[in-house]
Protein backbone atom coordinates (compact mmCIF):
# COMPACT_ATOMS: atom_id res chain seq x y z
CA UNK A 1 0.00 0.00 0.00
CA UNK A 2 1.30 3.44 -0.93
CA UNK A 3 1.43 5.70 2.05
CA UNK A 4 3.43 8.53 0.55
CA UNK A 5 3.24 9.76 -3.02
CA UNK A 6 5.51 12.59 -4.06
CA UNK A 7 4.56 14.17 -7.34
CA UNK A 8 6.75 16.59 -9.23
CA UNK A 9 8.25 18.33 -6.20
CA UNK A 10 10.49 21.35 -6.78
CA UNK A 11 11.71 23.74 -4.17
CA UNK A 12 13.39 27.08 -4.73
CA UNK A 13 14.56 29.03 -1.69
CA UNK A 14 14.67 32.82 -1.65
CA UNK A 15 12.72 33.16 -4.84
CA UNK A 16 13.17 36.93 -4.99
CA UNK A 17 16.71 37.73 -3.89
CA UNK A 18 19.13 34.90 -4.56
CA UNK A 19 17.24 31.85 -5.76
CA UNK A 20 18.59 28.44 -4.73
CA UNK A 21 16.97 25.46 -6.35
CA UNK A 22 17.14 22.80 -3.66
CA UNK A 23 14.83 20.24 -5.28
CA UNK A 24 14.17 19.82 -8.93
CA UNK A 25 11.27 17.61 -10.02
CA UNK A 26 11.17 14.74 -7.57
CA UNK A 27 8.74 11.85 -7.94
CA UNK A 28 8.77 9.11 -5.33
CA UNK A 29 6.41 6.60 -3.82
CA UNK A 30 6.81 4.96 -0.41
CA UNK A 31 5.02 1.82 0.71
CA UNK A 32 3.85 0.93 4.14
CA UNK A 33 6.60 -0.79 6.14
CA UNK A 34 9.57 0.55 4.21
CA UNK A 35 12.99 1.12 5.74
CA UNK A 36 14.30 3.64 3.28
CA UNK A 37 17.27 5.92 3.29
CA UNK A 38 17.83 9.07 1.32
CA UNK A 39 21.47 9.61 0.63
CA UNK A 40 23.48 12.24 -1.10
CA UNK A 41 26.21 14.75 -0.45
CA UNK A 42 25.74 17.73 1.76
CA UNK A 43 23.57 20.34 0.08
CA UNK A 44 21.94 17.82 -2.24
CA UNK A 45 18.49 18.54 -0.83
CA UNK A 46 17.89 15.69 1.66
CA UNK A 47 16.68 17.93 4.47
CA UNK A 48 14.53 19.94 2.12
CA UNK A 49 12.91 16.79 0.78
CA UNK A 50 12.19 15.38 4.25
CA UNK A 51 10.82 18.73 5.40
CA UNK A 52 8.43 18.78 2.48
CA UNK A 53 7.33 15.17 3.01
CA UNK A 54 6.72 15.99 6.67
CA UNK A 55 4.77 19.15 5.89
CA UNK A 56 7.31 21.35 7.68
CA UNK A 57 7.93 23.28 4.51
CA UNK A 58 5.95 23.84 1.34
CA UNK A 59 7.22 22.87 -2.10
CA UNK A 60 7.38 25.55 -4.74
CA UNK A 61 5.82 23.09 -7.15
CA UNK A 62 4.25 19.65 -6.86
CA UNK A 63 2.26 17.78 -4.24
CA UNK A 64 2.75 15.35 -1.41
CA UNK A 65 -0.02 12.85 -0.81
CA UNK A 66 -0.13 10.93 2.43
CA UNK A 67 -2.69 8.17 2.42
CA UNK A 68 -4.28 10.03 -0.44
CA UNK A 69 -4.48 13.35 1.40
CA UNK A 70 -2.72 16.23 -0.31
CA UNK A 71 -0.90 17.81 2.64
CA UNK A 72 0.52 20.65 0.57
CA UNK A 73 -2.97 22.06 0.29
CA UNK A 74 -3.74 21.89 4.02
CA UNK A 75 -3.93 25.10 6.03
CA UNK A 76 -1.23 25.75 8.62
CA UNK A 77 -3.40 24.67 11.48
CA UNK A 78 -4.64 21.45 9.90
CA UNK A 79 -1.12 20.66 8.79
CA UNK A 80 0.08 20.84 12.41
CA UNK A 81 -2.78 18.61 13.50
CA UNK A 82 -2.00 16.24 10.62
CA UNK A 83 1.65 15.97 11.65
CA UNK A 84 0.69 15.32 15.24
CA UNK A 85 -1.54 12.47 14.22
CA UNK A 86 0.38 10.90 11.35
CA UNK A 87 4.07 11.71 11.29
CA UNK A 88 6.90 11.10 13.73
CA UNK A 89 10.07 13.17 13.56
CA UNK A 90 13.64 12.49 14.58
CA UNK A 91 16.10 15.33 14.15
CA UNK A 92 19.81 15.42 13.66
CA UNK A 93 20.36 17.45 16.81
CA UNK A 94 18.01 15.32 18.99
CA UNK A 95 15.84 18.32 19.90
CA UNK A 96 14.41 17.01 23.13
CA UNK A 97 12.77 19.36 25.60
CA UNK A 98 15.63 19.97 28.04
CA UNK A 99 13.47 20.66 31.08
CA UNK A 100 11.54 17.43 30.81
CA UNK A 101 12.70 13.94 31.76
CA UNK A 102 12.90 11.06 29.32
CA UNK A 103 9.44 9.91 30.37
CA UNK A 104 7.97 13.38 30.10
CA UNK A 105 9.50 13.99 26.70
CA UNK A 106 7.84 10.88 25.36
CA UNK A 107 4.58 11.49 27.15
CA UNK A 108 4.45 15.07 25.91
CA UNK A 109 3.42 14.06 22.39
CA UNK A 110 0.57 11.98 23.75
CA UNK A 111 -0.49 14.88 25.94
CA UNK A 112 -0.64 17.03 22.82
CA UNK A 113 -2.83 14.35 21.28
CA UNK A 114 -5.05 14.40 24.34
CA UNK A 115 -4.51 10.76 25.23
CA UNK A 116 -5.73 9.48 28.58
CA UNK A 117 -3.32 9.35 31.49
CA UNK A 118 -3.62 5.60 31.66
CA UNK A 119 -2.89 5.13 27.97
CA UNK A 120 0.02 7.53 28.12
CA UNK A 121 1.72 5.81 31.00
CA UNK A 122 1.58 2.32 29.58
CA UNK A 123 2.66 3.44 26.12
CA UNK A 124 5.55 5.44 27.57
CA UNK A 125 6.76 2.44 29.55
CA UNK A 126 6.50 0.27 26.50
CA UNK A 127 8.53 2.68 24.38
CA UNK A 128 11.19 3.26 27.01
CA UNK A 129 11.57 -0.47 27.18
CA UNK A 130 11.77 -0.75 23.40
CA UNK A 131 14.63 1.77 23.14
CA UNK A 132 16.38 0.30 26.16
CA UNK A 133 16.33 3.29 28.49
CA UNK A 134 14.43 1.94 31.48
CA UNK A 135 17.18 2.96 33.90
CA UNK A 136 17.27 6.49 32.49
CA UNK A 137 13.58 7.18 32.36
CA UNK A 138 13.63 9.88 35.00
CA UNK A 139 16.74 11.62 33.73
CA UNK A 140 16.77 14.87 31.89
CA UNK A 141 18.33 14.91 28.41
CA UNK A 142 21.53 16.62 29.58
CA UNK A 143 22.31 13.52 31.65
CA UNK A 144 22.18 11.30 28.58
CA UNK A 145 24.72 10.55 25.87
CA UNK A 146 23.95 11.59 22.30
CA UNK A 147 23.01 8.05 21.39
CA UNK A 148 20.67 7.78 24.35
CA UNK A 149 19.08 11.11 23.52
CA UNK A 150 18.46 10.02 19.97
CA UNK A 151 16.84 6.82 21.24
CA UNK A 152 14.51 8.98 23.32
CA UNK A 153 13.79 10.95 20.16
CA UNK A 154 12.86 7.75 18.35
CA UNK A 155 10.62 6.73 21.23
CA UNK A 156 9.02 10.17 21.15
CA UNK A 157 8.47 9.91 17.41
CA UNK A 158 6.73 6.59 17.97
CA UNK A 159 4.61 7.81 20.84
CA UNK A 160 1.90 9.22 18.66
CA UNK A 161 1.59 5.94 16.69
CA UNK A 162 2.36 7.72 13.44
CA UNK A 163 1.98 6.30 9.96
CA UNK A 164 5.70 6.77 9.37
CA UNK A 165 8.79 8.32 10.88
CA UNK A 166 11.03 10.84 9.17
CA UNK A 167 14.58 11.07 10.47
CA UNK A 168 16.93 13.66 9.04
CA UNK A 169 20.49 12.46 9.50
CA UNK A 170 19.69 10.84 12.85
CA UNK A 171 23.20 9.50 13.28
CA UNK A 172 25.18 12.54 12.13
CA UNK A 173 25.90 13.63 15.68
CA UNK A 174 26.62 10.13 17.00
CA UNK A 175 29.73 8.04 17.26
CA UNK A 176 29.72 4.92 15.12
CA UNK A 177 28.80 2.57 17.92
CA UNK A 178 25.80 4.62 19.01
CA UNK A 179 24.85 5.06 15.38
CA UNK A 180 24.81 1.32 14.85
CA UNK A 181 22.87 0.78 18.04
CA UNK A 182 20.26 3.34 16.99
CA UNK A 183 19.92 1.78 13.57
CA UNK A 184 19.48 -1.64 15.15
CA UNK A 185 16.66 -0.33 17.28
CA UNK A 186 15.03 1.33 14.29
CA UNK A 187 15.41 -1.84 12.26
CA UNK A 188 13.89 -3.92 15.02
CA UNK A 189 10.92 -1.58 15.33
CA UNK A 190 10.52 -1.67 11.59
CA UNK A 191 10.55 -5.42 11.42
CA UNK A 192 8.66 -6.26 14.58
CA UNK A 193 6.12 -3.49 14.59
CA UNK A 194 6.04 -2.72 10.89
CA UNK A 195 6.87 0.94 11.40
CA UNK A 196 7.87 2.81 8.26
CA UNK A 197 11.15 4.72 8.54
CA UNK A 198 12.51 7.19 6.05
CA UNK A 199 15.87 8.56 7.04
CA UNK A 200 18.55 10.58 5.36
CA UNK A 201 22.24 10.02 5.80
CA UNK A 202 25.59 10.39 4.16
CA UNK A 203 27.16 7.71 6.28
CA UNK A 204 27.92 4.58 4.27
CA UNK A 205 27.51 2.22 7.24
CA UNK A 206 24.08 3.57 7.98
CA UNK A 207 23.14 3.35 4.34
CA UNK A 208 23.94 -0.34 4.32
CA UNK A 209 21.20 -1.05 6.84
CA UNK A 210 18.52 0.45 4.64
CA UNK A 211 16.43 -1.79 2.46
CA UNK A 212 15.92 0.96 -0.07
CA UNK A 213 18.46 3.62 -0.95
CA UNK A 214 17.39 6.72 -2.78
CA UNK A 215 20.29 8.81 -3.96
CA UNK A 216 19.79 12.44 -4.71
CA UNK A 217 22.14 14.97 -6.12
CA UNK A 218 21.49 18.60 -6.88
CA UNK A 219 17.86 18.15 -6.01
CA UNK A 220 17.26 15.23 -8.34
CA UNK A 221 16.82 11.54 -7.71
CA UNK A 222 19.68 9.87 -9.53
CA UNK A 223 19.28 6.38 -8.15
CA UNK A 224 16.57 4.40 -6.33
CA UNK A 225 17.54 0.88 -5.32
CA UNK A 226 15.37 -1.57 -3.43
CA UNK A 227 17.73 -4.13 -1.89
CA UNK A 228 15.20 -6.87 -1.25
CA UNK A 229 14.58 -7.00 -4.94
CA UNK A 230 18.19 -6.65 -5.95
CA UNK A 231 19.54 -9.35 -3.67
CA UNK A 232 17.86 -12.32 -5.23
CA UNK A 233 19.10 -11.21 -8.64
CA UNK A 234 22.73 -10.77 -7.61
Amino acid at each position, binding site marked *: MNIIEIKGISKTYDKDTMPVQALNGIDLVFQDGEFASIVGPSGSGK*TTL*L*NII*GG*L*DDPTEGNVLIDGINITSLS*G*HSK*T*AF*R*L*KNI*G*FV*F*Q*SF*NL*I*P*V*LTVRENIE*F*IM*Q*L*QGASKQGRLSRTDELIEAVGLVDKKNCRPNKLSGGQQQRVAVA*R*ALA*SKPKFILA*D*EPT*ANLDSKSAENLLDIMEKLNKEENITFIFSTHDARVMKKARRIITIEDGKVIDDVIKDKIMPES
Partner: protein
Amino acid sequence: MLWSLSWKNIWRNKLRSTVVIMAVMLGVFAGVFLIAFMNGMVEDRIQTVIKTEISHIQIHQPGFGENNDFSLFMPDADSLTQIIDKTNHVSSVSKRVVISSLVASAETNTGVKILGVVPEDEMKVTNLSTKIIEGSYFATDRKNVAVIGKKLAEKLKVTLNKKIIITAQDVNKNITGGAFRIVGIFETDNYMYDELTVFVRYHDLCVLTGLQGTEAHEIAVLLDDNAYSEPVKQKLGKDFARLDVQNWTELSPEAGYLVSAMDQYMIIFIIVILLALCFGIINTMLMVVLERVKELGMLMAVGMSKPMIFFMIMLETIYLSITGGMLGLVLGYLLSNHLGIVGVDLYFWKEAYASVGYSSLIFPKIGLQTIILIAIMVIITGIVSAIYPAFKALKLNPAEATRTD
Protein backbone atom coordinates in the same frame (compact mmCIF):
# COMPACT_ATOMS: atom_id res chain seq x y z
CA MET B 1 0.76 20.40 31.00
CA LEU B 2 1.72 23.83 29.68
CA TRP B 3 1.43 25.33 33.13
CA SER B 4 4.19 23.18 34.53
CA LEU B 5 6.25 23.14 31.32
CA SER B 6 6.31 26.94 31.23
CA TRP B 7 7.28 27.10 34.86
CA LYS B 8 10.16 24.68 34.25
CA ASN B 9 11.17 26.66 31.19
CA ILE B 10 11.73 29.86 33.10
CA TRP B 11 14.25 28.08 35.30
CA ARG B 12 16.43 27.04 32.37
CA ASN B 13 18.43 30.16 32.72
CA LYS B 14 18.34 30.60 36.46
CA LEU B 15 20.48 33.69 36.56
CA ARG B 16 18.55 35.56 33.93
CA SER B 17 15.15 34.68 35.34
CA THR B 18 16.30 35.54 38.84
CA VAL B 19 17.53 38.91 37.64
CA VAL B 20 14.21 39.65 35.95
CA ILE B 21 12.20 38.49 38.93
CA MET B 22 14.37 40.56 41.26
CA ALA B 23 13.99 43.61 39.05
CA VAL B 24 10.22 43.29 39.04
CA MET B 25 10.25 42.57 42.75
CA LEU B 26 12.35 45.63 43.56
CA GLY B 27 10.30 47.85 41.30
CA VAL B 28 7.03 46.80 42.82
CA PHE B 29 8.49 46.82 46.31
CA ALA B 30 9.76 50.37 45.86
CA GLY B 31 6.40 51.39 44.46
CA VAL B 32 4.46 49.86 47.32
CA PHE B 33 6.75 51.26 49.95
CA LEU B 34 6.83 54.76 48.54
CA ILE B 35 3.07 54.80 48.20
CA ALA B 36 2.72 53.62 51.76
CA PHE B 37 5.17 56.28 52.85
CA MET B 38 3.45 59.11 51.01
CA ASN B 39 0.12 57.80 52.15
CA GLY B 40 1.30 57.82 55.73
CA MET B 41 2.44 61.42 55.38
CA VAL B 42 -0.82 62.53 53.84
CA GLU B 43 -2.85 60.58 56.35
CA ASP B 44 -0.92 62.18 59.17
CA ARG B 45 -1.36 65.62 57.67
CA ILE B 46 -5.09 65.03 57.42
CA GLN B 47 -5.26 63.80 60.96
CA THR B 48 -3.52 67.01 61.99
CA VAL B 49 -5.92 69.06 59.92
CA ILE B 50 -8.93 67.36 61.46
CA LYS B 51 -7.81 66.77 65.01
CA THR B 52 -5.71 69.84 65.64
CA GLU B 53 -6.62 72.55 63.22
CA ILE B 54 -10.13 72.27 61.88
CA SER B 55 -12.19 69.36 63.28
CA HIS B 56 -14.70 67.76 60.91
CA ILE B 57 -17.23 70.50 60.41
CA GLN B 58 -17.33 74.24 61.04
CA ILE B 59 -20.23 76.63 60.94
CA HIS B 60 -19.95 80.34 60.22
CA GLN B 61 -22.04 83.23 59.04
CA PRO B 62 -21.89 83.33 55.26
CA GLY B 63 -18.94 85.45 54.18
CA PHE B 64 -17.04 85.18 57.44
CA GLY B 65 -14.45 82.88 55.95
CA GLU B 66 -13.35 85.46 53.40
CA ASN B 67 -11.73 87.98 55.73
CA ASN B 68 -12.91 87.10 59.23
CA ASP B 69 -15.14 90.18 59.46
CA PHE B 70 -15.73 90.72 63.19
CA SER B 71 -19.36 91.75 62.74
CA LEU B 72 -20.32 88.46 61.05
CA PHE B 73 -21.04 86.51 64.23
CA MET B 74 -23.88 84.18 65.11
CA PRO B 75 -25.69 85.95 67.93
CA ASP B 76 -27.17 82.95 69.71
CA ALA B 77 -24.43 80.38 69.44
CA ASP B 78 -25.38 78.51 72.59
CA SER B 79 -28.75 77.39 71.28
CA LEU B 80 -27.07 76.29 68.05
CA THR B 81 -24.49 74.22 69.86
CA GLN B 82 -27.24 72.54 71.82
CA ILE B 83 -29.02 71.48 68.64
CA ILE B 84 -25.80 70.32 67.02
CA ASP B 85 -24.79 68.36 70.09
CA LYS B 86 -27.96 66.29 69.73
CA THR B 87 -27.34 65.47 66.09
CA ASN B 88 -26.38 61.90 65.24
CA HIS B 89 -22.66 61.12 65.00
CA VAL B 90 -21.65 64.42 66.59
CA SER B 91 -19.18 63.72 69.32
CA SER B 92 -18.47 67.26 70.56
CA VAL B 93 -19.03 70.92 69.75
CA SER B 94 -17.09 74.06 70.57
CA LYS B 95 -17.95 77.70 69.95
CA ARG B 96 -15.27 80.22 69.20
CA VAL B 97 -14.83 83.93 68.81
CA VAL B 98 -12.35 84.56 66.03
CA ILE B 99 -10.49 87.77 65.48
CA SER B 100 -7.83 88.60 62.98
CA SER B 101 -5.60 90.96 64.83
CA LEU B 102 -2.20 92.13 65.75
CA VAL B 103 -0.18 90.89 68.72
CA ALA B 104 2.74 92.78 70.04
CA SER B 105 5.54 91.96 72.44
CA ALA B 106 8.11 94.36 73.81
CA GLU B 107 10.22 93.57 70.79
CA THR B 108 7.95 93.34 67.78
CA ASN B 109 4.47 92.67 66.48
CA THR B 110 2.77 90.42 63.96
CA GLY B 111 -0.62 89.56 62.50
CA VAL B 112 -2.35 86.50 63.94
CA LYS B 113 -5.68 84.82 64.35
CA ILE B 114 -7.01 84.96 67.87
CA LEU B 115 -9.34 82.16 68.88
CA GLY B 116 -11.46 82.78 71.94
CA VAL B 117 -12.37 79.31 73.16
CA VAL B 118 -14.07 77.63 76.09
CA PRO B 119 -11.15 75.38 77.07
CA GLU B 120 -13.32 72.58 78.48
CA ASP B 121 -15.28 72.32 75.21
CA GLU B 122 -12.33 72.97 72.95
CA MET B 123 -10.34 70.17 74.52
CA LYS B 124 -12.98 67.73 73.36
CA VAL B 125 -13.04 69.02 69.80
CA THR B 126 -9.35 69.49 69.04
CA ASN B 127 -6.27 67.88 70.49
CA LEU B 128 -4.31 71.10 70.76
CA SER B 129 -4.30 70.75 74.53
CA THR B 130 -2.06 67.70 74.05
CA LYS B 131 0.48 69.69 72.06
CA ILE B 132 1.58 71.89 74.94
CA ILE B 133 5.34 71.84 75.34
CA GLU B 134 5.65 74.50 78.07
CA GLY B 135 3.18 75.68 80.70
CA SER B 136 -0.38 74.42 80.47
CA TYR B 137 -3.57 74.62 78.49
CA PHE B 138 -5.44 77.24 80.52
CA ALA B 139 -4.91 75.38 83.81
CA THR B 140 -5.16 78.61 85.78
CA ASP B 141 -7.86 80.82 87.23
CA ARG B 142 -6.17 84.04 86.17
CA LYS B 143 -7.87 86.32 83.73
CA ASN B 144 -6.48 87.35 80.34
CA VAL B 145 -4.17 84.47 79.69
CA ALA B 146 -3.08 83.15 76.30
CA VAL B 147 -1.71 79.98 74.79
CA ILE B 148 0.49 80.56 71.75
CA GLY B 149 2.52 78.54 69.29
CA LYS B 150 6.23 77.99 69.73
CA LYS B 151 7.04 79.64 66.42
CA LEU B 152 5.07 82.73 67.39
CA ALA B 153 6.83 82.86 70.75
CA GLU B 154 10.15 82.74 68.94
CA LYS B 155 9.06 85.40 66.51
CA LEU B 156 7.82 87.72 69.25
CA LYS B 157 10.82 86.81 71.39
CA VAL B 158 8.62 86.02 74.35
CA THR B 159 8.63 83.18 76.84
CA LEU B 160 6.22 81.66 79.33
CA ASN B 161 4.64 84.20 81.74
CA LYS B 162 5.58 87.13 79.54
CA LYS B 163 2.81 89.40 78.34
CA ILE B 164 1.63 90.11 74.84
CA ILE B 165 -0.68 92.88 73.74
CA ILE B 166 -3.65 91.96 71.61
CA THR B 167 -5.10 94.79 69.57
CA ALA B 168 -8.55 94.37 68.03
CA GLN B 169 -11.76 96.06 66.98
CA ASP B 170 -14.68 96.01 69.36
CA VAL B 171 -18.38 95.76 68.55
CA ASN B 172 -18.54 99.49 68.06
CA LYS B 173 -15.63 99.40 65.61
CA ASN B 174 -13.37 101.12 68.07
CA ILE B 175 -9.83 99.98 68.49
CA THR B 176 -9.33 98.19 71.75
CA GLY B 177 -6.54 96.18 73.25
CA GLY B 178 -5.47 94.15 76.22
CA ALA B 179 -2.45 92.51 77.78
CA PHE B 180 -2.50 88.70 77.98
CA ARG B 181 -0.08 86.61 79.93
CA ILE B 182 1.34 83.56 78.18
CA VAL B 183 0.49 80.45 80.21
CA GLY B 184 1.13 77.81 77.58
CA ILE B 185 3.18 77.23 74.46
CA PHE B 186 2.20 74.58 71.95
CA GLU B 187 3.92 72.96 69.05
CA THR B 188 2.18 71.11 66.23
CA ASP B 189 3.59 69.59 63.06
CA ASN B 190 2.56 72.71 61.17
CA TYR B 191 4.85 75.65 61.80
CA MET B 192 2.59 78.02 59.86
CA TYR B 193 -0.24 77.21 62.20
CA ASP B 194 2.00 77.62 65.22
CA GLU B 195 3.06 81.03 64.01
CA LEU B 196 -0.39 82.35 63.25
CA THR B 197 -2.64 81.09 66.04
CA VAL B 198 -3.26 82.45 69.53
CA PHE B 199 -5.73 80.92 71.97
CA VAL B 200 -7.39 82.95 74.71
CA ARG B 201 -10.47 82.32 76.85
CA TYR B 202 -13.79 82.93 75.17
CA HIS B 203 -14.95 84.99 78.08
CA ASP B 204 -11.87 87.23 78.14
CA LEU B 205 -12.20 87.96 74.45
CA CYS B 206 -15.91 88.81 74.81
CA VAL B 207 -15.05 91.28 77.53
CA LEU B 208 -12.29 92.84 75.45
CA THR B 209 -14.46 93.28 72.39
CA GLY B 210 -17.75 94.01 74.10
CA LEU B 211 -19.63 90.85 73.05
CA GLN B 212 -22.50 89.58 75.22
CA GLY B 213 -21.06 86.13 75.85
CA THR B 214 -23.53 84.19 73.70
CA GLU B 215 -22.10 84.92 70.26
CA ALA B 216 -19.67 82.95 68.16
CA HIS B 217 -17.95 83.44 64.84
CA GLU B 218 -17.25 79.78 64.51
CA ILE B 219 -18.69 76.55 65.77
CA ALA B 220 -16.38 73.57 65.43
CA VAL B 221 -17.92 70.09 65.36
CA LEU B 222 -16.10 66.80 65.90
CA LEU B 223 -17.79 63.63 64.66
CA ASP B 224 -17.27 60.09 65.83
CA ASP B 225 -15.95 59.12 62.38
CA ASN B 226 -14.60 60.98 59.38
CA ALA B 227 -16.87 58.91 57.16
CA TYR B 228 -19.84 60.97 58.37
CA SER B 229 -18.35 64.36 57.57
CA GLU B 230 -20.34 64.65 54.36
CA PRO B 231 -23.77 63.37 55.51
CA VAL B 232 -23.67 65.29 58.79
CA LYS B 233 -22.62 68.40 56.91
CA GLN B 234 -25.64 67.95 54.63
CA LYS B 235 -27.93 67.47 57.59
CA LEU B 236 -26.66 70.54 59.45
CA GLY B 237 -26.73 72.52 56.24
CA LYS B 238 -30.46 71.82 56.07
CA ASP B 239 -31.02 72.59 59.75
CA PHE B 240 -29.22 75.92 59.49
CA ALA B 241 -30.03 77.01 55.98
CA ARG B 242 -28.93 80.60 56.61
CA LEU B 243 -25.51 79.60 57.88
CA ASP B 244 -22.44 78.35 56.15
CA VAL B 245 -21.82 74.69 57.08
CA GLN B 246 -18.59 73.27 55.71
CA ASN B 247 -16.58 70.13 56.26
CA TRP B 248 -12.83 69.94 56.47
CA THR B 249 -12.28 69.24 52.78
CA GLU B 250 -13.94 72.55 51.99
CA LEU B 251 -12.29 74.42 54.83
CA SER B 252 -8.85 73.13 53.96
CA PRO B 253 -9.10 72.48 50.24
CA GLU B 254 -5.41 71.71 49.99
CA ALA B 255 -5.81 68.87 52.49
CA GLY B 256 -8.88 67.60 50.69
CA TYR B 257 -6.98 67.84 47.42
CA LEU B 258 -4.11 65.84 48.90
CA VAL B 259 -6.38 62.85 49.30
CA SER B 260 -7.55 62.79 45.72
CA ALA B 261 -4.15 63.80 44.35
CA MET B 262 -2.54 60.97 46.30
CA ASP B 263 -4.66 58.43 44.47
CA GLN B 264 -3.69 59.86 41.11
CA TYR B 265 0.00 60.14 41.95
CA MET B 266 -0.06 56.61 43.16
CA ILE B 267 -1.49 55.28 39.90
CA ILE B 268 0.91 57.33 37.77
CA PHE B 269 3.80 56.24 39.93
CA ILE B 270 2.98 52.56 39.60
CA ILE B 271 2.34 52.88 35.88
CA VAL B 272 5.76 54.43 35.35
CA ILE B 273 7.46 51.66 37.33
CA LEU B 274 5.53 48.92 35.59
CA LEU B 275 6.12 50.43 32.17
CA ALA B 276 9.86 50.37 32.77
CA LEU B 277 9.64 46.77 33.96
CA CYS B 278 7.48 45.90 30.97
CA PHE B 279 10.27 46.85 28.57
CA GLY B 280 12.78 44.83 30.55
CA ILE B 281 10.54 41.79 30.49
CA ILE B 282 9.84 42.10 26.77
CA ASN B 283 13.54 42.35 26.08
CA THR B 284 14.31 39.26 28.13
CA MET B 285 11.54 37.23 26.59
CA LEU B 286 12.60 38.17 23.08
CA MET B 287 16.01 36.80 23.94
CA VAL B 288 14.37 33.66 25.25
CA VAL B 289 12.43 33.17 22.02
CA LEU B 290 15.53 33.81 19.94
CA GLU B 291 17.52 31.25 21.90
CA ARG B 292 14.88 28.62 21.52
CA VAL B 293 14.16 29.03 17.83
CA LYS B 294 15.14 25.46 17.19
CA GLU B 295 13.20 23.98 20.05
CA LEU B 296 10.10 25.99 19.22
CA GLY B 297 10.46 24.78 15.63
CA MET B 298 10.63 21.23 16.92
CA LEU B 299 7.50 21.73 19.01
CA MET B 300 5.66 22.99 15.97
CA ALA B 301 7.04 20.15 13.88
CA VAL B 302 5.87 17.45 16.25
CA GLY B 303 2.42 18.95 16.35
CA MET B 304 2.15 21.63 19.01
CA SER B 305 -0.37 24.12 17.71
CA LYS B 306 0.35 27.81 17.35
CA PRO B 307 -2.16 28.80 20.04
CA MET B 308 -0.37 26.45 22.42
CA ILE B 309 3.04 27.88 21.55
CA PHE B 310 1.64 31.37 22.04
CA PHE B 311 0.14 30.38 25.36
CA MET B 312 3.35 28.74 26.54
CA ILE B 313 5.45 31.86 25.91
CA MET B 314 2.71 34.03 27.41
CA LEU B 315 2.72 31.87 30.52
CA GLU B 316 6.48 32.05 30.88
CA THR B 317 6.37 35.81 30.66
CA ILE B 318 3.47 36.09 33.05
CA TYR B 319 5.12 33.76 35.53
CA LEU B 320 8.22 35.93 35.54
CA SER B 321 6.33 39.16 36.10
CA ILE B 322 3.87 37.78 38.57
CA THR B 323 6.45 35.96 40.66
CA GLY B 324 8.50 39.13 40.95
CA GLY B 325 5.44 41.30 41.36
CA MET B 326 3.92 39.24 44.14
CA LEU B 327 7.23 39.00 46.00
CA GLY B 328 7.56 42.77 45.75
CA LEU B 329 4.00 43.28 46.92
CA VAL B 330 4.39 41.01 49.89
CA LEU B 331 7.73 42.49 50.91
CA GLY B 332 6.48 46.04 50.42
CA TYR B 333 3.35 45.29 52.37
CA LEU B 334 5.19 43.64 55.24
CA LEU B 335 7.76 46.41 55.52
CA SER B 336 5.11 49.13 55.29
CA ASN B 337 3.02 47.44 57.93
CA HIS B 338 5.98 47.00 60.21
CA LEU B 339 7.09 50.61 59.82
CA GLY B 340 3.45 51.62 60.11
CA ILE B 341 3.64 50.40 63.68
CA VAL B 342 7.09 51.58 64.72
CA GLY B 343 7.18 54.66 62.51
CA VAL B 344 9.98 56.20 60.48
CA ASP B 345 11.53 59.16 62.25
CA LEU B 346 13.09 61.60 59.81
CA TYR B 347 14.15 63.84 62.70
CA PHE B 348 17.03 65.33 60.72
CA TRP B 349 14.46 66.85 58.36
CA LYS B 350 12.04 67.85 61.07
CA GLU B 351 12.33 71.59 60.33
CA ALA B 352 11.77 71.11 56.63
CA TYR B 353 8.76 68.87 57.12
CA ALA B 354 7.17 71.04 59.80
CA SER B 355 7.56 74.20 57.77
CA VAL B 356 5.18 72.71 55.21
CA GLY B 357 2.89 71.26 57.83
CA TYR B 358 4.04 67.65 57.98
CA SER B 359 5.21 65.50 60.82
CA SER B 360 8.71 64.07 60.49
CA LEU B 361 7.59 60.93 62.25
CA ILE B 362 5.91 59.01 59.47
CA PHE B 363 3.81 55.89 59.78
CA PRO B 364 3.66 54.30 56.32
CA LYS B 365 0.25 52.98 55.56
CA ILE B 366 -1.16 51.05 52.66
CA GLY B 367 -4.63 49.63 52.29
CA LEU B 368 -5.44 46.15 51.07
CA GLN B 369 -7.42 47.78 48.29
CA THR B 370 -4.31 49.51 47.00
CA ILE B 371 -2.39 46.25 47.21
CA ILE B 372 -5.05 44.50 45.18
CA LEU B 373 -5.05 47.31 42.65
CA ILE B 374 -1.28 47.03 42.26
CA ALA B 375 -1.54 43.25 42.00
CA ILE B 376 -4.02 43.62 39.16
CA MET B 377 -1.74 46.13 37.45
CA VAL B 378 1.19 43.72 37.78
CA ILE B 379 -0.85 40.96 36.19
CA ILE B 380 -1.87 43.26 33.35
CA THR B 381 1.76 44.24 32.86
CA GLY B 382 2.68 40.57 32.68
CA ILE B 383 0.06 39.93 30.03
CA VAL B 384 0.90 43.02 28.02
CA SER B 385 4.63 42.30 28.02
CA ALA B 386 3.93 38.70 27.05
CA ILE B 387 2.06 39.48 23.86
CA TYR B 388 4.93 40.66 21.70
CA PRO B 389 7.44 37.88 22.50
CA ALA B 390 4.71 35.25 22.15
CA PHE B 391 3.77 36.75 18.83
CA LYS B 392 7.41 36.55 17.73
CA ALA B 393 7.42 32.88 18.62
CA LEU B 394 4.42 32.33 16.37
CA LYS B 395 6.30 33.74 13.41
CA LEU B 396 8.79 30.91 13.60
CA ASN B 397 8.80 28.14 11.07
CA PRO B 398 8.67 24.44 11.96
CA ALA B 399 11.48 23.80 9.47
CA GLU B 400 13.77 25.57 11.94
CA ALA B 401 13.86 22.28 13.81
CA THR B 402 15.86 20.59 11.09
CA ARG B 403 18.37 23.36 10.52
CA THR B 404 21.83 22.39 11.53
CA ASP B 405 23.75 25.62 10.94
